[in-house]
């Protein structure tokens, strides 16, 4: 209020962000999650047996010799982008494709390459089996001689994807159904509320196990199942919030201005009801990461040889009697990611909830 004069318009989310910034824990957690997200996206430039950038001389089968700059790591990173990714990948130079084996054709002295900090791919096996932590393999290797650090980094990708996509699905369903139930009331609310109650009775984890007996245990399927079962909390919160907002005068005002019911719900009311759902979504992401890790640990999640934190833990568990070196990194990764999402959720709740708003952070 004191800075009102010289300040541009402050919307709800901007004010919330200003309060959020004051929480050191919340900011730390958010920063760490930002780091995890960056690691997930840039994984092909952080852990890869192909360089980020290299200049190679290459004589192809038909005798033509080229000497070009290649960006295999960068390309692989950009290829992950939806829509533009594939287009970039098939683009002409400077994004020419290195369609020969880097390792086989690389000649030190003639060619040069900038390798990623972890110069191994997560699927690349080697003769260095079951090694402890070393300068070459920072977090050691597993039974097949794969670099654990590289696998952990790619595991981040899996966890982030599962967390965000599954909760994205859940949020979409939960927000829509909750808003519709809350605004229209009557039999619509009756039906949706009963569905919510039914879903609340499912033990999600076992439901997923049951479903995975029928469908191939692919990561996409896991995300969809988590999304289809975890929307319940979001729907309940949103319904309650819309129920409250519906009685406020701006709803009557919007109606008196001639707005139709769907416009009122989705444009006027839902933006005001997002705050509690945001908190629930954040906690939901943490939950989804845990579910995926658990599934992978049991062998129902991400399938070998693809890495995920749960898989690494599973592989490490087999070796525990002899060398427990794979357990701490995987545990730490799961623990920290879940902790940070929960901390962000907690802070968000404090920042958004009017009852705790007055308290200093």
């Amino acid at each position, binding site marked *: 209020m004191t800075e009102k004069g010289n300040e541009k*318009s*402050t919307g709800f989310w901007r004010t919330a962000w200003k309060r959020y910034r004051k929480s050191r824990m919340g900011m730390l957690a958010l920063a760490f999650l930002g780091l995890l997200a960056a690691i997930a996206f840039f994984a092909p430039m952080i852990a890869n047996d192909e360089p980020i950038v290299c200049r190679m001389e290459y004589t192809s089968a038909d005798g033509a010799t080229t000497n070009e700059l290649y960006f295999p790591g960068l390309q692989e990173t950009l290829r992950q982008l939806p829509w533009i990714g594939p287009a970039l990948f098939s683009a002409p130079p400077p994004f020419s494709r290195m369609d020969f084996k880097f390792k086989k054709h690389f000649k030190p002295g003639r060619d040069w390459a900038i390798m990623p900090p972890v110069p191994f791919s997560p699927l690349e096996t080697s003769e260095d089996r079951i090694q402890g932590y070393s300068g070459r393999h920072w977090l050691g290797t597993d039974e097949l001689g794969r670099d654990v650090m590289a696998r952990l980094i790619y595991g981040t990708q899996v966890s982030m994807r599962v967390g965000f996509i599954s909760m994205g699905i859940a949020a979409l369903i939960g927000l829509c159904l909750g808003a519709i139930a809350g605004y229209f009331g009557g039999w619509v609310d009756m039906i949706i509320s009963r569905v919510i109650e039914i879903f609340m009775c499912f033990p999600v984890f076992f439901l997923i196990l049951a479903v995975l007996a029928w469908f191939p245990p692919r990561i996409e399927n896991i995300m969809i199942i988590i999304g289809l079962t975890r929307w319940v909390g979001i729907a309940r919160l949103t319904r309650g919030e819309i129920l409250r907002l519906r009685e406020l005068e701006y709803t009557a005002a919007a109606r*008196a*201005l001639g*707005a139709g019911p769907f416009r009122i719900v989705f444009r*006027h009311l839902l933006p005001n009801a997002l705050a509690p759902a945001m908190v629930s979504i954040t906690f939901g992401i943490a939950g989804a990461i845990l579910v995926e890790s658990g599934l992978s640990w049991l062998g129902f999640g991400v399938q070998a040889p693809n890495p995920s934190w749960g898989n690494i833990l599973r592989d490490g568990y087999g070796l525990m009697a002899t060398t427990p070196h794979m357990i701490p990194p995987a545990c730490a990764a799961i623990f920290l990611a879940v902790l940070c999402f929960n901390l962000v959720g907690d802070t968000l709740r404090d920042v958004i909830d009017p009852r705790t708003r007055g308290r200093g952070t």
Partner: protein
Amino acid sequence: MTLLDIRNLSVEFHTEEGIVRAVDEVSFDIPRGKTVCLVGESGCGKSVSAYSLLGLVSPPGRVVGGKAILHGTPRLDLLKLPEKGLRSIRGNRISMIFQEPMTSLNPVFTIGDQIIEAILSHQAMNKFEAREKTISMLEQVKIPAPEQRVDEYPHQLSGGMRQRALIAMALATEPDLLIADEPTTALDVTIQAQILELLKELQADTGLSVLFITHDLGVVAEIADEVVVMYASRVVEKAAARELFANPLHPYTRGLFGSLPSLGGNADGRLKTIEGSVPDPLAFPTGCKFWPRCELAVDGCRETEPELRTLAADHPVACDVIEGGADD
């Protein structure tokens, strides 16, 4: 010229405790370019009457009878129009402003966003034109620095400013009728006077009709051309403002005027309140609903409900006891 002709409007709420007749056979008309004040104690059905004109009474409430003919066109009966037809009238031909300027604006959108949306949903304009129109409306309702205010959020404005913004929003589509449900009750007295002044000016400029709901007789004296007095869901007296203040007929109206210091008969200037309280709508008394509180009540009042009858010229009143003309 009559803009809106309301005949025998009745609204019921079917609650678990029973049927509440919140509006009972209410009739009055709103002349073009004039202000009609709807007055009465809390709970007498003023808001429900106004809401039902826009089809905004939601379940368990239901309009059970009556007509509300707009522009003298029988086709435009607001009580019978389908939802879609009403939607093109709401906020377009008839706008509404509410009691609480604090909660009538959506907190997540700027003032400008909301007014622009109101304009665009009824008028063929592009965004830039709508924004220009919004700024000129804000200027018209005397909001200082409208170019800046337009991009501010509701919580950055004071109560009086918000009510001005709401008036701007209501009038941006150039409606024929503005329904104002106690728009000044939540404001302090000086702001209240400014808002009333503003409404009068806007009305003089645009020829707008206003249906103004209030229980503050000071406001009525300030703004009304015509007054409709309601008591326990029914109209008990209707008259031009000047006539009503000079010659209140119904004992209830006299009681109300008795509670107005400047006009009241009390020599010591104390507020005179009407004895007793508003009857429970689930258990209205038989006969005239006012008799338990009425000083003039006779036995007959308990039996028959009085109909409106015209004692003085253009001055119908629903009381069987009082005699025509001013007798005191």
